């Protein structure tokens, strides 16, 4: 039984823990989640939204998360979903799930009566085939199935996934790329990349779709959850430019888009509803060389703390983000279970103290290079200034976009600026601090981290893990392994009686939108 709640910001609800505990232990009943607010609606609208990137490929093995998901998640169903308001894992195509004791086996039970757009049933075989294929095929999804040793269909509705060891992030992954279900009958055909046979609520209107530019999708009435999808068509226009999407919004070509805060005032209040989300991602300075292998200064806790002290987070929030967001020193989502508001006070803006620390550590005058990408442009002057304030020099080196990722992993740089969207509690810290985490290319670890992660990796129940995560969170904040700036927020403007309901979870799916009368 599910009751969605309005989640109060910044407060860890014991009730949330209870609910997630229920979820993990698999006691969820088979009933469908109710969308926030409305009852089953007969009004079906046309939703037209803007996305900044077009899906590379609709092949289940190649799916990329991010705004690309608007398109692919409408065509391909995922095993699990996340509740937009609370961010908790809720049933998707799978109505229930259960881990075995040591987390090496996950059993998923699918719903009845689901079908692909071709008419074939969405069953355990489909899930097995898709997952095994994604595991074998070089692509974006493969690495997230790294711990999977086998996937079997026990019966028509039951899938058993075996792991070589407990993977705490796996369950969350099932609500994004790795959880997509493709049609085994057609999955190896050429059409899969551009127009797959899908298990999701929409099919692609290939006549009207211009790949890379605008995607038009039409609702499937035979989708198992059709009555909860209040849109008869979905149009996704790829617009990289904020001004262009604002123009399109005002001209009525879109009825939902993110807008820059400062222009919200120009929208006609009669026509548009505004929803402000204060945290969708974290912007932070990732200190890659925490161990000080190449840059000894960065290996010194004092220097790292000094960097944290040098950043005037409130000014950044007000100046660069017009107040939409939250100043923070953590990487985890404020809507999640790990978040600790008190940690935000740990590094009050104090460049003087920072300068002292740097001098104490003996690294005054050190200079660091950092890749400059289009993400970092607006924040570069701030960071340069911050470093200068504490007696260090920061030099930005332009890196072409296609080399940005490899620049971070190359070992040529000790620092890297990122804006990382929230994934899930189980992933957010691991990504940056785990030994094999993407945000930890030098594989830094120490005794505390080793201990914490090995415990985390052997605790199957999420709520049992939470205290470990919290300890980890506090540890990394104390050690100042990274220097977060702010949580970046977003403002959605919607029209035509459509509203944006995403709050704790902002996975780009159609379920972020709802219809109000």
């Amino acid at each position: 039984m599910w009751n969605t709640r309005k989640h109060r910001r910044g407060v860890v609800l014991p009730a949330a823990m209870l609910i997630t505990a229920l979820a993990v232990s698999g006691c969820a009943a088979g009933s469908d989640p109710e969308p926030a607010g409305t009852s089953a609606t007969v009004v079906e609208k046309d939703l037209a939204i803007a996305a900044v990137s077009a899906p590379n490929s609709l092949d289940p093995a190649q799916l990329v998360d991010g705004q690309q998901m608007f398109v692919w998640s409408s065509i391909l169903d995922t095993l699990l979903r996340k509740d937009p308001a609370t961010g908790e894992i809720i049933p998707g195509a799978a109505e229930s799930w259960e881990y075995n004791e040591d987390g090496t086996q996950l059993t998923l039970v699918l719903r009845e009566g689901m079908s692909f757009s071709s008419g074939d049933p969405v069953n355990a075989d489909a899930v097995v085939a898709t997952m095994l294929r994604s595991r074998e095929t070089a692509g974006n999804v493969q690495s997230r199935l790294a711990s999977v040793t086998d996937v079997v269909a026990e019966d028509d509705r039951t899938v058993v996934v075996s792991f070589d060891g407990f993977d705490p992030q796996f369950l969350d992954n099932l609500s994004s790329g790795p959880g997509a279900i493709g049609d085994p009958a057609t999955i190896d055909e050429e059409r899969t990349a551009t127009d797959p046979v899908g298990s999701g609520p929409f099919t692609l209107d290939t006549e009207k779709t211009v790949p890379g530019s605008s995607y038009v999708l039409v609702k499937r009435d035979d989708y198992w959850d059709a009555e909860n999808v209040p849109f008869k068509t979905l149009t996704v226009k790829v617009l990289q430019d904020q001004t262009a999407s604002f123009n399109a919004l005002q001209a009525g070509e879109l009825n939902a888009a993110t807008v820059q805060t400062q222009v919200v005032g120009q929208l006609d209040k009669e026509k548009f509803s505004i929803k402000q989300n204060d945290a969708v991602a974290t912007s932070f300075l990732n200190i890659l060389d925490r161990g000080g292998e190449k840059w000894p200064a960065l290996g010194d806790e004092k220097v790292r703390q000094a960097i944290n002290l040098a950043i005037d987070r409130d000014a950044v929030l007000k100046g660069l983000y017009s107040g939409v967001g939250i100043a923070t020193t953590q990487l985890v989502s404020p809507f999640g279970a790990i978040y600790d508001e008190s940690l935000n006070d740990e590094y009050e803006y104090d460049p003087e103290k920072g300068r002292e620390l740097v001098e104490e550590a003996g690294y005054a005058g050190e200079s660091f290079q950092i890749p400059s990408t289009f993400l970092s442009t607006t924040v570069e002057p701030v960071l340069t200034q911050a470093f200068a304030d504490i007696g260090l020099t920061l030099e930005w080196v332009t890196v072409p976009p296609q080399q940005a990722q490899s620049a971070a992993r190359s070992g040529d740089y000790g620092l890297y600026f990122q804006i990382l969207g929230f994934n899930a509690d189980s992933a957010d810290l691991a990504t940056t601090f785990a030994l094999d985490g993407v945000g930890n290319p030098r594989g830094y670890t120490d005794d505390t981290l080793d201990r914490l992660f090995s415990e985390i990796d052997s605790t199957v129940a999420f709520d049992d893990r939470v205290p470990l995560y919290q300890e980890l969170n506090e540890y990394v904040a104390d050690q100042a392994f990274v220097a977060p700036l702010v949580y970046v927020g977003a403002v959605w403007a919607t029209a035509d009686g459509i509203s944006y309901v995403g709050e704790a979870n902002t996975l780009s799916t159609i379920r972020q939108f709802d219809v109000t009368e």
Partner: protein
Amino acid sequence: MLSYILRRLGAGIVLAILVTLITFLLLSTSFDDVAQSILGTGATPDVVAGLIEQKGWDRPVLVQYFDWLIHAVQGDFGVSVYTSLPVGPTVLQRLAVTLSIIVPALILTVIISVVLGVWSASRGGIVDRIAQGISLIGYIVPGLLLAIVLVVVFAVQLKWLPATGFTPFAEDPAAWVRSITIPVIVLTIGGVANMAAQVRGRMIDELRRDYIRTLRTRGSSTTSIVIKHALRNAASPALTVMSLEFIQMFGGALIIENVFALPGYGSFAFNASLQGDIPVIMGITAFGVLLVTVVNLLTDLANGWLNPKARVH
């Protein structure tokens, strides 16, 4: 004549081969980065190496190039490493979109430039000043600024024209016209600023030639002299300008495509370059060179038609 055309096309193909070879050599330094991008952030170095081997990117560069070439001459330009869309048809599709903006813009540019140029060359005085003024405004006012104003007025306020996006002609001719209106206007203004001055210059030169005077002495009318004779002779060098303008417009179209979110050749090339989508870049380069060759060839043929001295026999 036919052999001339074939020779030129042949030369164009040779050039295309050379250009794509050089391009591929330059791109071959980034196989690693591309593999990383495909696999996403979670991939380990061995997986990356595995993908490189799987795609055949570890083979000697020349071998890879010839492999591509052999397929290319058969019409198979491979598929995008990211989207798996076939390169050839996609490039042509994108090219069609861009051409559907450039060609009307070029036609308008030529018409307006010729009218302005001829007018100001054969009238002089205040008409000339006005025409030069128009040209000047075209230079000073950036096309982008004008585009914004037009979008705000006609798309956002009046909703006569779309603010973004492109409707293919086949789907809805009227909508297609509306979707290209502002981009074409922007390109045309830039083009006219350039070309009108050239036409004017050519016409002035031409009108001072001896045979013009002789024609006058035979009693030919002014219209006949200006249009039938002077313009015809001035057209030949103006054609060269036009073909250069055409190629230049591709550059301008790139920016416009970005601003108006048009799925054109320029933005396709740009994104592919940023992403390092090697097969797409190769396809774009090859088509680009061939396009330039064809344009140059057409220009020369038109030149030959206009100017008997330049004809090849």
